[in-house]
């Protein structure tokens, strides 16, 4: 059974229909690309799935349960984490704290336990080790106690990706993870994505414009245009699809 | 010789800031005048005692009054203070005064909440409002008002005055009274004026109006009332605080009060041979006219100093001696005589109206609170 299914999802902003009856599926363990011209509704679609925007109509099924209508925090608890197109970090907090915040069921996060360190100290140290591991992967361990506001644009992108991973998601929604990232690192990010899929079985739905990298890693690709799904298929299919070439590559 | 001069400090906790800031300033001047006169006399008499003052701002809150009193006492060792002003502030200062044996000589507080026997609060000179409210009720009845509309400041003073006025008015055979409170910080009273006017209209003829207001609000009220078709046709009474000279600065306002046959019942109007001397001395020292209550502060300061001359700079002794001294004191207002609660028991008021040329308030009679009789000149 697919991990994520969308049925006739729709989103209107006033008069503008940003997402128009989109139905799609993401198989468990797959890396699925979502591409399309600017303004075609990709980010909005991710927002709908993550529960941070309210849908106008349609249904979202995740892991067998209907999650349409759940709030963003509930969706996250079910196992869907997301990255933002414009990095949304906690700018006045350290890199490490950014990474630690999303960890689920932290005992020290309960106000009654929080004052008593022995309830949470051990768990916190474990989490810190895990966070250090993730930061290392995104080349930010050296910056663990810098404020996020002091990172460069690309570093912010990387930190955000690392932060999402800390929530141990089943499905990770990424909005242009490599925008602004150095070429060698961009490739490494996708290698990392691929490794995560293999080792932890995480499923990915990725919006990306750097197709030369994306196409090397995806199992399948959806193409959006003006809020609609225009095409679906393997990377090769899409690359050779006439209509897609026209609206997206501008050929 | 200079060396053995002993200085007693008189504390002055008053609201220098807040909406009564100008009262605080005036009161302080009254006290400073009393102190400088006293010091001159002491020097002339060869006494080795001198008075000094220490003033602190109560910020017009009860807790601020407590802090002011604390600071004065702990900074200068003062055992006697003249002030604070309102009943709230007096009560705020009460606990510290009682515990530390500091005597509070308040000159203008008149709310019933501070009428407490045995504590360190003495409210000399200014009698509780039970008397003046009765005077106003008597005048209203005498003027033939069947119903009254009261606009009062919504604080312990205004509410107390209102309640007691209603009780006295109705006990004397008066009819219904409609009262409106205005919030103490109001700077603008057009809503209130509209409501008062409507209530007066509802009562029909023979209704009178009684304003228990502070100067700023009173001005704002008269400003709107002067074009009101109803308020300009009824008779008015008002509390003493309304009778500032600023009130008459605008000829339109003065005329409104003249037309309304405005009268006030005020302690300060009662005068003794010392009153004009005080006025002259005040002008000589500060180059401005004293405010309406300034001489109360002057008298209170004198009572405090006289007591200290007799009892020394010692709170407990002053507390024990103060009723005796006040009961034998005549200053610029009236005889002071304290009841069991330490409050002024003699109520001798003047009745005043606006002079025909609209430039001053003039005395037209008097009211004896202890016998409840009005006499017109």
């Amino acid at each position: 059974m697919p991990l994520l299914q969308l049925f006739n999802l729709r989103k209107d902003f006033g008069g503008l229909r940003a997402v128009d009856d989109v139905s799609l599926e993401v198989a468990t363990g797959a890396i699925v690309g979502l591409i399309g011209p600017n303004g075609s509704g990709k980010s909005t679609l991710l927002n709908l799935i993550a529960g941070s925007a309210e849908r106008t109509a349609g249904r979202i099924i995740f892991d067998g349960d209907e999650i349409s209508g759940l709030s963003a925090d509930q969706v996250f608890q079910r196992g869907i984490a997301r990255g933002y197109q414009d990095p949304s970090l906690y700018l006045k907090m350290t890199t490490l704290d950014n990474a630690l915040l999303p960890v689920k069921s932290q005992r020290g996060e309960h106000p009654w336990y929080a004052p008593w360190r022995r309830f949470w100290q051990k768990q916190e140290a474990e989490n810190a080790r895990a966070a250090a591991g993730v930061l290392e992967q995104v080349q930010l361990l050296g910056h663990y106690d810098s404020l996020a506001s002091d990172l460069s644009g690309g570093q912010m992108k990387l930190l955000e990706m690392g932060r999402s991973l800390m929530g141990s998601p089943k499905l990770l929604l990424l909005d242009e993870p490599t925008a602004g990232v150095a070429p060698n690192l961009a490739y490494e990010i996708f290698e990392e994505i691929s490794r995560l899929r293999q080792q932890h079985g995480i499923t990915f739905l990725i919006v990306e414009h750097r197709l030369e990298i994306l196409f090397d890693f995806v199992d399948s690709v959806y193409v959006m245009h003006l809020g609609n799904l225009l095409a679906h298929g393997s990377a090769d299919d899409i690359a050779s699809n006439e209509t897609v070439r026209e609206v997206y590559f501008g050929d | 010789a200079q060396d053995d001069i002993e200085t007693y400090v008189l504390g002055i906790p008053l609201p220098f800031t807040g909406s009564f800031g100008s009262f605080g300033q005036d009161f302080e001047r009254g006290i400073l005048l009393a102190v400088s006169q006293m010091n001159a006399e002491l020097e002339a008499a060869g006494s080795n005692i001198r008075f000094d003052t220490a003033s602190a701002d109560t910020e017009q809150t009860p807790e601020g009054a407590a802090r002011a009193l604390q600071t004065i006492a702990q900074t200068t060792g003062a055992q006697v203070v003249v002030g604070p002003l309102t009943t709230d502030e007096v009560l705020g200062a009460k606990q510290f005064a009682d515990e530390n044996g500091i005597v509070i000589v308040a000159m203008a507080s008149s709310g019933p909440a501070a009428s407490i026997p045995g504590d360190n609060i003495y409210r000399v000179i200014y009698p509780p409002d039970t008397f003046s409210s009765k005077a106003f009720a008597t005048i209203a009845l005498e003027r033939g008002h069947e119903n009254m509309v009261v606009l009062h400041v919504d604080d312990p003073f205004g509410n107390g005055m209102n309640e007691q006025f209603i009780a006295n008015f109705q006990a004397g055979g008066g009819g219904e009274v409609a009262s409106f409170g205005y919030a103490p910080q109001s700077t603008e009273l057009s809503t209130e004026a509209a409501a008062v006017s409507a209530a007066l209209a509802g009562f029909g003829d023979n209704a009178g109006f009684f304003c228990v207001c502070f100067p700023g609000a009173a001005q704002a009220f008269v400003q709107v009332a002067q074009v009101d078709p109803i308020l300009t046709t009824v008779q008015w009474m008002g509390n003493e605080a309304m009778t500032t000279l600023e009130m008459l600065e605008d000829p339109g306002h003065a005329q409104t009060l003249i037309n309304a046959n405005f009268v006030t019942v005020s302690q300060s109007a009662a005068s003794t041979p010392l009153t004009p001397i005080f006025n002259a001395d005040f002008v000589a020292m500060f180059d401005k006219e004293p405010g309406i209550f300034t001489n109360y502060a002057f008298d209170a300061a004198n009572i405090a100093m006289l007591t200290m001359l007799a009892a020394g700079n010692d709170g407990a002794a002053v507390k024990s001696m103060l009723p005796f001294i006040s009961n034998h004191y005549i200053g610029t207002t009236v005889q002071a005589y304290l009841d069991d609660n330490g409050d002024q028991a003699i109520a001798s008021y003047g009745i005043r109206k606006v002079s025909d040329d609209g430039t001053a308030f003039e005395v037209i009679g008097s009211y004896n609170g202890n016998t409840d009789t009005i006499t017109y000149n």
Partner: protein
Amino acid sequence: MITVDHLTAGYGKLEILQDLSLAFAAEQFSAVLGPNGSGKSTLMKAIMGLNTIFSGSITLRTRELIGMQTEAISKLGIAYVPQRENIFTELSVLENLQLGVRILPRDQRENALNELFELFPILGRRKPQKAGQLSGGEHRMLAIAIAWLSRPTIMLLDEPSAGLAPAIATDVFNILKELSQQGITLIVVEQNARRILQHCDYAFVLREGRLMFDGSAQACLEDEETIKGYLGVH
């Protein structure tokens, strides 16, 4: 045209650029490349007077820029498109563009806007929309448009193609090419390095605040060090 000489600059007490010297030639299309955090954006901010300069100089022709107010620098004909927060999100798209043309003489403004709408028809369609509601790509187009509308002689662009769909990215590169041909001096930071190196004349590669490489675009693509440390082999 712009000469950076022994520049040490950064934020607060933090030094990011270390004794950096380089020169951007007039009418040239230069790319500034380098790993994330290497100081590319910092260099641009330094030119615009937006961060702390510890030592060194930056001159436009013969004019010293260090110490000048940002507003004054922009009046010298330098337009800058920051990496982030590069549009007025609370204003409408049209108002953003009007601010772009504000320094042009009155009679040229209308024309400039019309030309722009030909170049970016999508912005024409979004005129009354609040700029903060644009999609990522639209956002970036608007940012470039604002800068371009002031008809600068030098443009500094911080990652103009990031987040753009290939079709638009191609357009942007074409526009850059065209601007360069019109004689505008272009200084562009890009992470889409291979792509920009096909268009630009000259490249600088920074690493940890120092210059690692400078030379023609072609030379850069072939430079071993650069490939290893930055471009990657893919």
